[in-house]
């Protein structure tokens, strides 16, 4: 159920057509700038309001300071954590775990997805088991893995790998299955060997799907990383947050929460940038 995208509708609107036709590019740009500034101001309204309420509530101690630290305190804590390098080192630990889990789980997911996509026999044998295993959320596997692997580094990597496996598997599987039959025919006509078919025909059409899966894996992995660090860890950003909570330093909790949101957002943006850059040709080329 796709609906005409906004840009398309805008392009059809008389006002837009007129402006385009008149070639009033300069006024258009100025209006765009003003519009953007207006948008930014509107977007900032709510955060500013929230911080103002927060500030007032903390200033007049409407809420106990233990459970609502004042904004300046949170700011000072953030600067302190960055200045001492603790925030960076905890973040580095977390990102390293994410990278390890993604490398293991993502690669396996990619391979299994490709194999199942290429061979219907493999799909028939593997797919029900894989589906059944993934019926249970990562969180459910956590106690099992904790008993099996202890609470060391292996636990984190295994759990993150488990979370990263599925999105990449499903997307690469879909990618292989959606290779246009015409492209396959071309490969047959050119008498490409199986390896060349894979390299020049299947892989290019699978790549966009793989990158979508990668992006999903990244965001899933980040969420699970925080979870496992909150439960069983002595380092990392999730640990820092739980530690702040246990010692009732909610300023640390708020700083880490913001950091978790910001890093999650940045990772997603970066993955999206890679995706658009690597598959820019896909949107340019004609539909199969």
């Amino acid at each position, binding site marked *: 159920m796709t609906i005409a995208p906004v840009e398309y509708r805008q392009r059809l609107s008389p006002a837009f057509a007129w402006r385009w036709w008149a070639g009033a590019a300069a006024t258009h740009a100025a209006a765009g700038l003003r519009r953007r500034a207006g948008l930014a101001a509107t977007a900032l309204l709510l955060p500013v309001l929230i911080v103002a309420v927060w500030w007032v509530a903390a200033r007049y101690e409407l809420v106990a300071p233990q459970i609502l630290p004042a904004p300046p305190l949170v700011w000072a804590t953030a600067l302190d954590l960055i200045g001492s390098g603790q925030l960076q080192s905890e973040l580095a630990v977390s990102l390293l775990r994410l990278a390890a889990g993604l490398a293991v789980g993502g690669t396996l997911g990619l391979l299994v997805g490709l194999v199942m996509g290429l061979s219907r026999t493999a799909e028939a044998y593997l797919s029900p088991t894989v589906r059944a295993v993934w019926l249970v959320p990562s969180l459910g596997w956590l106690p099992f893995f904790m008993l099996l692997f202890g609470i060391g580094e292996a636990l984190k990597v295994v759990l993150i790998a488990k979370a990263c496996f599925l999105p990449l598997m499903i997307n690469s599987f879909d990618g292989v299955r959606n290779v246009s039959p015409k492209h396959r025919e071309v490969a047959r006509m050119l008498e490409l060997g199986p390896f060349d078919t894979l390299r020049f025909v299947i892989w290019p059409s699978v790549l966009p799907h793989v990158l979508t899966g990668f992006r999903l894996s990244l965001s899933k992995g980040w969420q699970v990383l925080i979870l496992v660090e*909150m439960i069983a860890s002595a380092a990392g950003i999730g640990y820092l947050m739980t530690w702040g909570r*246990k010692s*009732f330093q909610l300023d640390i909790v708020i700083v880490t929460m913001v950091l978790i*949101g910001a890093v999650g957002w940045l990772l997603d943006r970066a993955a999206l940038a890679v995706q658009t850059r690597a598959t820019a040709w896909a949107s340019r080329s004609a539909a199969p």
Partner: protein
Amino acid sequence: MSASLVGASLAQSGRWRGLVLPGALLLVWVAVAAGGGPKSAVFVSPGAVLAAAREAIESGDLPGAAGATLLRAFLGWSIGSAAGFALGLLLGLSAWSRRAAAPTLHGARQIALFAWIPLLSAWLGNGEAMKIALIALSGFFPVLLHVEAGCRDVPQPYREVARLFAFDRFGEIAFVILPAAAPTIISGLELAFAIAWIGTIGAEYLIGTGYMNASPDGIGAFLAGARENARMDLVVVGILSLALIGFVLDRAVVLASRRAVAWRRQPQ
């Protein structure tokens, strides 16, 4: 259907091949257990798991936990969905409110669900209110996003029909926009339920267990307790029941939503 019929249909459809791997794994497990098994505290035999399952069901622990979890998931999902629906409607219908609130909401959405626990638990304590709040939060964002997108993307011709009928704003929303957005909204509710289910397990697992004291119940707490006592048999029982309930819930939600938007199922 008799067993032989089931067998015949399985053989015919080739779906038996999906059972080979789980069957082989089960055989290996049984064989290893029969051979004495490795000398390890975490190895449990299939018999032990069956016995634990029977014990957990007969003592009422497991059904009680499942009931508590389902009730909690449903309650939290209802609250979160209602809030998400109201706010999504507002954002979807008013461009100004979307410009004002969407960036903040999208920012808040970036924070991993379970990262809310430390802050919320300081505010709401470790009791039921906290768990429900977390589950509601988990269901809130998917519904918000889907309702907003659904209402915003109603095709222009539909809106023109509303104008043609001289509907007032309420009539336009009730008879044109909401029906047109229904499939999107329902898939948002579906997604929210799947996420709320995970959120419930997480809330039960993380809140009210360990150092935080409250009355722990639900499957999450069941799993946490089983792990704390190093009872691998109970952990396996907990995981199996999670899989079973997850499967049944998924089917039920898909059936219910198919029925709810049956008119949209024409071929595209």
